């Protein structure tokens, strides 16, 4: 039951992913909508594709970090927040997220 739902969700995601494969902004939006549905692995995939198109996208790195955090992958989350701050040292949300991770 659960595995068929997972497959359906995966197919749905891959269809959306191919529709916006060359559009960084659309990939970012897709990532966020996956994130809001708690599809964290799919969100990570979308953010990574977005970064592959725009490797200086601080928002994509920040959102990638939050999705990793949701999966308890703190090291990967930290690296993503650090990358967002490297691109934009004034990215307040990344700094805050990094502070919270250090206190964890």
């Amino acid at each position, binding site marked *: 039951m659960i595995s068929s739902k*997972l497959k359906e969700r995966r197919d749905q995601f891959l269809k959306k992913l191919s529709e916006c494969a060359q559009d960084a902004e659309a990939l970012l939006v897709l990532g966020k909508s996956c994130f809001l549905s708690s599809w964290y692995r799919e969100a990570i995939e979308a953010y990574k594709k977005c970064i592959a198109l725009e490797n200086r996208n601080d928002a994509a790195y*920040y959102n990638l970090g939050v999705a990793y955090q949701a999966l308890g992958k703190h090291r990967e989350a930290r690296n993503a927040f650090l990358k967002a701050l490297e691109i934009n040292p004034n990215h307040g949300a990344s700094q805050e997220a990094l502070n919270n991770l250090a206190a964890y």
Partner: protein
Amino acid sequence: MKQFAVIGAGLFGTSVARTLSEEGCDVLLIDSNEERVRDMDEVVSQSVQLDATDEKALKSVGIADVDAVVVSVGKDMEASILVTMLLKEMGIKWVVVKAISEAHYKILARLGADRIVFPEREMGVKVANSLLHPTIFDYLEVAPGYNIIETEPPPEIIDKSIEEARVRSRYGVDIIAIKRKRPVLDSSGNSKLEDEVTIVPQADEIIREGDAIVVIGSEANLEKLKL
């Protein structure tokens, strides 16, 4: 409204005072250092500069009326002992004292301190445990040999309901809460995680990847959950 007094405005004392104030409690903060008292003036209900070893001075600020007093006078063991003794003599119902050494701990216990905290020791144990078992986020001893731990769920129960996971028969423990990060977007459109806690979850509640489960059981059975 609950009333508390905190004696000593160091890092520990101010953390206690700030948290109690944020939770809406009436907090009286006492320290002998004028600058520290001034710094906390707007944080707590009343921030007073006085020598806490002076019984008359303590009584003059109405310390006998509070529900509990937290004594955190830094490295001055003698002052901490004297203040604790005065408070117990005054009949304060609940006195919590921060100990700075084993000897200090023993003296405070003999004086009748209701709770003695040893932050360095307690934190040291927690840090060591977190290094040994990175998936254990927190633990609490409820009775000798029985603990409550907050941990990452083992992979074999992820995407299963509590009923399907058969946690009790498999591990001999009970899940008493699930802590989950709820995904939201903030006003700037950035993704964010908000804490959500389900206390005594229903049997059909699904355990998801990224959840933390709060589990109660014997030490031996809880060991089975340590990844």
